[in-house]
């Protein structure tokens, strides 16, 4: 099965072509440019480097959220466009599951964190046994609350994600459990990890995980948050 994977949920723009447990191509860049300027050129570069015949793609994988609202929409609109030209199943993989999958096989519990602003993180808690298992599903919460949950589990934990540099100081302050930080090759969204986990979804073996297999038309971002306008309106006692 040939999977074309796209992740623009965070600061990294990432694309990969993975076929039957082999990464044919993987590009990850973090630049000052927007994903709208980098994502498709990366895919085009991959296409020419590996002489990809687009019609041989069997499925798409996309980081479906959470993440930057704009970043998510760039990746998802891209997959929707691909689907209009070439309709294939889409594995809508939760961003945090895909991040955790960078550390496949870890004996420690894995805690991806993304900076969600407003002093929160997008996070989840995962372990491998032997495949990816959920301890706590993805959510937006304060880093302090997350630390409380991890302290209660009192297991070794490894952090990954672009929230790490933001919350490194608070880790020292709040955590009583042993912890470590994923090194550079595992510390950001990787499209090959996304594709590998997508294959688990596409084989129908993702029981207990939070993503789904859908179509390009049915693909929906997982924002985990309302828009600010809806939130303000709700807090003011307006409609639903």
């Amino acid at each position, binding site marked *: 099965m040939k999977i074309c994977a796209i992740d623009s949920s965070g600061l990294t723009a990432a694309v990969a072509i993975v076929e039957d447990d082999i990464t044919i191509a993987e590009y990850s860049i973090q630049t000052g440019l927007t994903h709208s300027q980098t*994502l498709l050129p990366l895919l*085009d570069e991959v296409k020419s480097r590996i002489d990809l015949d687009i019609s041989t793609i069997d499925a798409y994988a996309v980081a479906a959220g959470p993440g930057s*609202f704009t970043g998510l*929409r760039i990746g998802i*609109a891209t997959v929707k466009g691909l689907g*209009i030209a070439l309709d294939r199943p889409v594995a809508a993989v939760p961003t945090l599951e895909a991040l955790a999958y960078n550390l496949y096989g870890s004996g420690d519990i894995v805690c991806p964190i993304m900076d969600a602003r407003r002093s929160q993180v997008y996070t989840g808690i995962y372990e491998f046994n032997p495949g990816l298992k959920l301890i706590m599903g993805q959510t937006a919460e304060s880093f302090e609350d997350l630390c409380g949950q991890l302290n209660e589990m009192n297991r070794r934990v490894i952090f990954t994600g672009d929230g790490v540099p933001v919350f490194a100081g608070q880790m020292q302050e709040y955590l009583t459990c042993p912890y470590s930080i994923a090194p550079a090759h595992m510390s950001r969204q990787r499209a090959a990890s996304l594709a590998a986990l997508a294959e688990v979804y596409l084989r129908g073996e993702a029981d207990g995980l939070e993503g789904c297999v859908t179509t390009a038309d049915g693909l*929906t971002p997982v*924002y985990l948050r309302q828009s600010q306008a809806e939130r303000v*309106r709700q807090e003011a006692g307006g409609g639903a």
Partner: protein
Amino acid sequence: MSDDLSILAIETSCDETAAAVVRNGREVLSNVIYTQIALHTEYGGVVPEIASRKHVEKINPVVRQALADAGMELKDVDVIAVTYGPGLVGPLLVGVNCAKAIAWAAGKPLVGVHHISGHISANYIEHPDLEPPYMCLVVSGGHTHLVEVTGYGEYRIIARTRDDAAGEAFDKVARAIGLGYPGGPKIDKAAREGDAHAIDFPKGKVRDSEYDFSFSGLKSAVLNHLNSCKMQGIEVNTADIAASFQRSVVEVLCERSMEVFDNSDMDKFALAGGVASNTALRDALTDALSARGAKLYVPSPVYCTDNAAMIGAAAYYEYTAGVRHGYDLNAVPNLSL
């Protein structure tokens, strides 16, 4: 057989998710518009994040419907076109990235289109005789431009607004007098019941420019009028305010347009943009032009509001002039004409 060129066009710059197939720049084979107006009405205006989310939900069904209505498959289309600015960045990005991916995966050329160039080009759809050069007044929620169309896709801006766009003034005044969003059609309707000479609102002028527009003073005058009525306990006549406000806007737009038109060597005048649907403005310009032996070119209302057929029309002339965009095409919210 043919030299025919079919363009699949996508437009998501504000609160309409739209797609169309246009042949040779002038023949609309399909024109699908999903409007989000109802969604934004309760917020009194377009909320960019809510609009962006809705575009993501609607983009594929709208594009597929446009192909189906045209009786086409993607392989029958020659070019993919998309609005890349100006507009709201979040909404623009949905259309731009969807269009780019379609173009890439289908191996079709990509043409990015300026939203205002689209509005102007909407006139080509129903007026086979219209060719540049001509003068065009573009009035919408975001723009008020008097433009010399010197060639297809070639523009010289003669005048523009220094503050609020005309359509923006309609929205703000409509909100102030309790008519709600969208202001243009609501004021147009209310004005028919009112006395356009009931209140003498000012006609905005810009000191250092002969032709530029200003609508913020007019908006303030309406707000002041409402305040002073309130303080004096006078009941406000909404229809009279709507009619008087609209008269002021229409007179400024019409008088300024005719000054510029008279001083140019153009003999054709076109109207474009969402506010081009305003009946008072259409009537005033039609009268002023017929007094000069000229005709007003104006699109049907469905091509005045944001739509993708107009983008397909503009894209045809860009494409035939050799314009192609790369896969790094970005949304440009403040793109200049």
